[in-house]
């Protein structure tokens, strides 16, 4: 069966990886793209979007986590012997990928941010971040299949094409996992999704107390943006929900404008905002590393600068 295999937690992420997989398949002389699905209906959609074959996993019994599919995935991969196996780098996806790679004794590039193919060697050349984002590591996998987990939204989702045909294979029953789910508490939806905001105002440790975050809120209102924060503001001070911290292990944002207020610019944070189009930083320490990651840096106390900035923005934007 060989080809390029895909597993992702959600439909959206599967479509993104189908898009990555079909572009690799073209360079591999039309290798097959094989995707896992959790229902026949999804399988049909994946075929219309570019998959050549879809392996349908049986439904999980109640109280089973998604990770219960691991043994079934391992068995299918052993039988199918793919060249490449791409998995979406969600939390569950990362565990599943690590366990599949360990069982098959192959290499896995975690959190792969770019990939290209060496056509002659039929080898994937994969990039990922290292040292909290300070460096980029380029790796190749010497085992088989070549495996990578790919963060959601790295690729555009594949779109349906008319009249595509493919094969649907139903996989046999799944053994119950020894990990039993005894409770689920869905997270309350956040009012603002900072990954979607056009402007992100980020609060750092330069704020002296929680109430002062109103300054960041006001700046966000004027610019039509959303407030985010650095990890210590969320995890140590607990001034803002953990959903709002930006960094390598938090949210990755790529707004048109990122404004860092009292943000020092630790590498782990910068990794979460480095794709912003324009970066403005306010910090009273002129040697703060954030200024190296900024287009516009204002050296000054945020308590002095932000009100002036808000005033000037109101004039400029007629607000």
């Amino acid at each position, binding site marked *: 069966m060989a080809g390029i295999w895909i597993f992702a937690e959600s439909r959206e992420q599967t479509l993104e990886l189908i898009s990555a997989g079909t572009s690799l398949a073209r360079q591999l002389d039309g290798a097959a793209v094989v995707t896992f699905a959790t229902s026949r209906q999804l399988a049909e959609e994946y075929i219309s979007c570019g998959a050549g074959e879809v392996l349908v996993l049986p439904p999980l019994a109640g109280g089973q986590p998604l990770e219960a599919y691991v043994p079934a995935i391992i068995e299918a991969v052993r039988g199918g012997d793919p060249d490449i196996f791409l998995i979406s780098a969600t939390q569950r996806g990362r565990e599943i*990928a690590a366990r599949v790679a360990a069982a098959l004794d192959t290499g896995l590039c975690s959190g792969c941010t770019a990939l290209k193919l060496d056509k002659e060697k039929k080898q994937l050349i994969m990039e990922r971040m290292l040292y909290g984002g*300070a460096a980029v590591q380029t790796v190749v996998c010497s085992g088989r299949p070549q495996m990578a987990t790919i963060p959601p939204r790295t690729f555009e989702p594949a779109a349906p094409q008319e009249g595509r045909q493919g094969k649907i294979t139903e996989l046999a029953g799944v053994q119950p996992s020894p990990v039993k789910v005894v409770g689920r508490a*869905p997270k309350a939806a956040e009012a603002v999704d900072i990954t979607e905001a056009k402007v992100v105002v980020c609060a750092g440790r330069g704020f002296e107390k929680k109430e002062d975050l109103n300054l960041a809120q006001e700046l966000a209102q004027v610019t039509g943006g959303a407030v985010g924060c650095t990890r210590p503001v969320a995890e140590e001070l607990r001034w803002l929900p953990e959903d709002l911290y930006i960094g390598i292990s938090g949210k990755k944002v790529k707004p048109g404008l990122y404004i860092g207020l009292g943000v020092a610019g630790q590498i782990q944070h910068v990794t979460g905002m*480095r794709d912003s*189009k324009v970066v403005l930083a306010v910090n009273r320490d002129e040697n703060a590393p954030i200024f190296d990651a900024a287009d516009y*840096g204002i050296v000054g106390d945020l308590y002095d600068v932000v009100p002036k900035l808000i005033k000037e923005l109101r004039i400029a934007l007629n607000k």
Partner: protein
Amino acid sequence: MLKIIACFKWVIDEQDIRVDQKSRELIMERVGYKISDYDRNAIEEAVRQQEAHGGSVVAVTVGPPGARQSLKDALSRGPERAWFISDPSFAALEPSQTAAILAEAIKTKGEFDLIICGEGSSDLYAQQVGPALAQRLGIPCATYVNKVTLEPGEKKLTAERKLDDGIETVSIQLPALITVLPDINTPRIPSLKQVLGAAKKPVEEIKKSDLGQDFQPRLETISILGATMERRRLKYSAEAADIKAVVDALLKEGVIA
């Protein structure tokens, strides 16, 4: 009695890395080392569970001989002994090797009830070693654990996993492995007495020859280059005229409207 293994990694402190702006080469002179950030939480959680339920905690690391200096730091945080799995070839291991080495060493040492790993290492952050180790040992695992409750009498644990879409609570029979998130606890800061006491705690060395395998990498690094960012790095003062200049520039960029 509960037997807990806490895994940790001795890593370069990424704050000390400098990048040569022209060649993008990493300048590693004068870098310091530390226990990987997330692994401090792993050690702390192991020690807290032992304090609550009794039993023993062993801290385990894999690395080149130079990583020996990590042991005192790890032991000052509470475990009563350590295993040092070391070989000159164990520098710059990739995650599948680390997991395979840990699995072999743990198999040779015998029994355990619970293995605790950090969510990822602060250098590679591949987040593979915990689940890959569980897979190699054939034991169940729970990743991204925010809270764990042990019931040693029933040989089971309940763990809360903090996931993107909410909290999932799972129940697992021991032996098992968990990977923990930073907010599961606040690691203690060792006292001078604890630091001095750590030097007297037993360290057992496990050599590559004890494990009877070669542990070839499955992932090969072609290059490591400093991450670059094209930024203008313009600096302004807090004077009103400068702030107006910044706002004008942002308008021109078209990023505010």
